[in-house]
């Protein structure tokens, strides 16, 4: 349920490689409201992952702007309320954007507990006991409380991804970015991860999800973006996109994946 409260405003976002010969993002403009569950679909190479990774500047865009909470994070400095130029602290903004990766990217040299508490302790200066208590609560929610002392290698793919989600939640982000979270999973583990994401959506978390799971897009998403060749070709509710696709590229894409 969108509240109309703009959390992220993307304006004419461009990402070029090789000085313009490859246009991964070719002028994307979109608003993400608080409470949105925005699902990004499209053929591979369409730029959907690049778009997602640009939102927290893991990819440095070539042009355009991204306003997060009203601050343009693509610029080195931005005027605050009094009009004074202050440095944009990207580390600070990234804390509020949790990210979940296709390949989990858990830290292999740390236990699950340390994976989860590292950032809260080091970045938010939470004390250790408090952070561990919070981690156990979150682990309990995803049914992995008994694995707190394990190392990532000891877990299945589905378990790793659930850990990656709660690791991001430890920082209490305002938005969660999912970059093909189920693409590297064995088919029988996809369900458990989607279930956690669905619960998160129902709790009102703002989410941007790049996925090939059309069932998830249809059922959980409230907005769907269709991207191809670095362009945003169609945007709408799941019903608009899946029942009444307008753009021929979208019709073609859906005929192949559905």
């Amino acid at each position, binding site marked *: 349920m969108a509240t109309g409260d703009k959390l992220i405003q993307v304006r004419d976002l461009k990402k070029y490689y090789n000085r313009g010969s490859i246009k991964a993002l070719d002028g994307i403009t979109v608003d993400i409201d608080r409470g949105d569950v925005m699902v990004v679909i499209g053929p591979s190479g369409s730029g959907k992952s690049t778009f997602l990774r640009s939102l927290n500047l893991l990819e440095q865009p070539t042009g355009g702007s991204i306003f997060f909470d009203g601050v343009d994070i693509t610029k080195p400095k931005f005027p605050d309320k009094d009009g004074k130029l202050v440095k944009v602290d990207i580390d600070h903004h990234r804390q509020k954007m949790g990210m979940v990766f296709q390949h989990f*990217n858990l830290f292999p040299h740390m236990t699950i507990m340390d994976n989860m508490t590292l950032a809260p302790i080091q970045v938010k200066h939470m004390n250790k006991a408090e952070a561990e208590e919070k981690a156990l609560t979150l682990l309990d929610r995803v049914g992995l409380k008994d694995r707190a002392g394990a190392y990532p290698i000891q877990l299945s793919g589905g378990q790793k991804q659930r850990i990656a989600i709660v690791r991001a939640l430890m920082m209490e982000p305002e938005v969660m970015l999912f970059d093909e979270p189920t693409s590297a999973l064995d088919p029988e583990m996809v369900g458990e991860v989607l279930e956690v994401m669905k619960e998160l959506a129902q709790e009102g978390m703002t989410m941007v999800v790049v996925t090939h799971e059309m069932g998830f897009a249809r059922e959980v998403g409230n907005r769907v973006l269709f991207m191809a060749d670095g362009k945003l070709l169609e945007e709408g509710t799941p019903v608009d996109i899946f029942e009444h696709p307008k753009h021929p590229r979208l019709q073609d894409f859906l005929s192949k994946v559905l």
Partner: protein
Amino acid sequence: MGSFIQLKNFEALLPYANMFKEGLITTVLLAFFTVLLGFVLGLVLSVMRMSNIRPFLWLAHAFPGTFGFFERDKKSGLLRDSGFLYHLGRFNPLAFLATAYVEIIRSTPVLVQVMVIYFGVFSQLFELPSFKIFGFIAFNRFFPGVVALAMNSGAYLCEIIRSGLQSVEGGQTEAARSLGLSQLQNMRFIILPQAIKNILPAIANEFVTIIKESAITYTIGVQDIMAMVQAIKSASYIIMEPLLVATALYFCLCFPLSKLIAYIERRMSRGDRR
């Protein structure tokens, strides 16, 4: 001629036991300080090589089309990836210096480097005070030895450290940064612990190599194990047995060290196994 190696010759070496002890201590200290200094140098060099400082980039952007080399593409309006100014813009002097240093060191014999440092730098340019550490290590020979060996091993360690840092998956940094960790925190908590684990065997190998290579410093008069062997040989006319003692001493230094590091390596790889 009697048997080649004789017990009585070992007995004849007993009066020289103290010399072996001093040589051993010198070798250990030489290797220890070389490792410390070499590691710092290697770290600095690897950071220089991986840096992204391009002081002339503004020139390339400020004068597109200058010399007819660096032009805007008529179709896209973007700068082309070619031409003199483009390459000048990409030039990174720190990386260039570090790379040049590494290549020069790796392409010349360590014996030459030791001689250049001792006879060239410390005998001509700097006058070192001539005092003795512990009463038997001559500082004005020991110090140039450490510097020369460290300069040599720094070049090798640079490559080891660089490959170790680059061997950590990019996804690790992305995960760390997305959690709000700064570049420095990412380095300290995520990259270095994993990189050190990856490069430990190679570093251990380099440390053992330093102990063995330090023998070469007897040529500039450092009184290490090898120098003592030479001295004992000329004093006692016994040749083979002092060499065997030296062999045993070097083995007793290097073998346990490599075993110790193999043990630490196993301990650190806990996260890799089920």
